[in-house]
């Protein structure tokens, strides 16, 4: 949108914009990981119910609603 030929707002230092994206990507990946352990029933991991059943006891003892 500006002459800098990138979509980054020029008001921010490039470093902090990159940090922002890194942080967002990190949070997304870690949330996905926690989701796979705590809630997935095969629809995301494409593993059928295998991972779900494998981590059954962990879910119960971590206090997540299970069934």
């Amino acid at each position, binding site marked *: 949108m500006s002459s800098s030929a990138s979509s980054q707002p020029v008001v921010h230092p490039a470093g902090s914009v990159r*940090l922002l994206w*890194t*942080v967002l990507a*990190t*949070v997304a990946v*870690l*949330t996905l*990981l*926690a989701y*796979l*352990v*705590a*809630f997935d029933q095969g629809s995301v991991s494409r593993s*059928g*119910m*295998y991972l779900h*059943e*494998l*981590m*059954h*006891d*962990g*879910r*119960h*003892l*971590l*206090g*997540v*609603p*299970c*069934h």
Partner: protein
Amino acid sequence: MPLNTTTTPPFAAVLVRGLLAGLIAGLLAGAFAYVAGEPHVEAAIAIEEAATHAEPAAAGAHDHEDALVSRTGQRGGLFLATGLFGAAMGGLLATAYVLLSRRRRGDDDGRSGLLLAGAALLGAVIVPFLKYPANPPAVGDPATINQRTVTYLLMVVLGLVAVWAGSLGYRSVGAQAPTWLRAAAAVGGFLLVTAVSYVVMPSFQEVPADFPATLLWSFRLASLGTQVVLWTGIGLLFAALMHHERRRRAGTALPST
């Protein structure tokens, strides 16, 4: 000569330490859960199976699991679950640490990592647990699982909001005010959000009438203990790893200055 330690380490360095702290703490929590919780899970599964055997006509072949994963596999999977979950939580803690470090004045002495872990334990574990305590197998109606999952997640968010309201209360009272007054404002903010959440959020009473009360209590205590071990471990290990990192950086920075 004062060390130049005010430079915060790069995000990747903090993240790796958070992930490592979380993984180790997760495995420790898994070990605790294995010793303290597994006997109760086994007892609850025995009750669950006795219940399905008691009404074979109604159940038929229904849900008599061809055991995709054996019980031994599930007991081992416990460590996989707590390890991965711990790593994810440690990474999120490290991310929050980096974001908050920009507002921190001066150098971190390890206190903020511990405070964050304590805040997570209170907001994301204890507050939700008191409203929606963990349930062993055989407790809970499968028909309401989606509802319970959503309300549980919402309660985690509300718990974190409550902790945030507490810190807001603490800071809203001026720094000149006596400590007890600032603490009272923190407690007030926290309790206000928590109490309103507890009243507004729906309750689920799904414990079968004949489920042993002592087993339920023991299981829930073990479940809470697992999370306490996890977050205590994450906080202490992360603070220790960050302390080591700061000393290493200070050491390498010295000769050049």
